[in-house]
């Protein structure tokens, strides 16, 4: 088997395992990454929401915020894990297609 084939399989296995990145923090009671809080958390931490932060934080509406479907914030870990895998697979496909296109454009033609 070619090494690239093995690595693609490895990526597939990682994609299925990726909910670990959701479940472990939840098990150990760990919150957001430092400096990546939402405005509510920010208010709890420093007592106010910085004005510029408040304005900019809602600047962009991503289609799948936090690797979950919109409106799923209150769903349990099982649902979120499912959405996480969907995000991983979807994200990988898009990243791969774009990277292949850029690579094709930039790489030397000779084999």
């Amino acid at each position, binding site marked *: 088997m070619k090494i690239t084939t093995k690595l693609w399989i490895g990526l597939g296995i990682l994609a299925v395992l*990726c909910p670990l990145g959701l479940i472990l923090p939840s098990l150990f009671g760990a919150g957001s*990454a430092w400096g990546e809080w939402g405005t509510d958390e920010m208010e709890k931490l420093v007592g106010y929401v910085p004005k510029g932060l408040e304005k900019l934080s809602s600047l*962009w509406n991503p289609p799948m915020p936090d690797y979950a479907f919109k409106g799923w914030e209150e769903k349990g870990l099982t649902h979120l894990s499912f959405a996480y895998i969907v995000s991983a697979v979807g994200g990988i496909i898009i*990243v791969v297609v774009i990277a292949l296109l850029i690579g*094709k454009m930039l790489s*030397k033609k000779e084999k």
Partner: protein
Amino acid sequence: MHIPDGYLGPTTCGAFYAVMLPVWALASRMVRKTLKAKQVPMMAIGAAFSFLIMMFNVPIPGGTTGHAVGGVLVAILLGPWAATIAITVALVIQALLFGDGGITAIGANCFNMAFVLPFAGYAVYKLISYNAPANSNRRVIAAFIAGYVGINVAALFAGVEFGLQPLLHHTADGQSLYCPYGLGVAVPTMLVEHLVIFGWVEAIVTGLVVKYIQKQSPELINPVTDEKGGQQ
């Protein structure tokens, strides 16, 4: 380490876009010179791996979370310029589709994770693995240390970017407009988290995958940029 929208003021965001534009241009130029057509799938795998490994949040019990970036690994396998391109693709998709990292902070996040991280890690890797045969253990150790150093240097930069904001932007009564934590909090926090926990995750990921590829396909260990060590 994905700085969201609203944590960095407009000056900082603009400055990092201004820095990254020529870096991206130069990266394209360098990749055009060095990347062979048969390496293109590897670059896509690298971008996908980086995207995916960043989803594996590692908890500090009762505290925050963090993750590896995988960028040093991509730099070791394809060279640092290709790593810049690959990680940029991952970061842009994370920001646009998943809100992981801000749109206004893409310049800064790419500077930290797609530029500083692979280059710092790559420099350490080259130094330690100098003249080592492709299958030597020294290359695995070099990869391990390079992963650790790369992500910590990136975390240092992120900490400084966060920490400068209260100095740059505040209201008359002293409230911050963007990130409210100054250098004295942001830098030590980012550094300690990564030195103590997340740095080791990047180190282990980088070392293990290099070890695996060495076993499976030693010709992939640095044939691109290493004139000497590559193929013995």
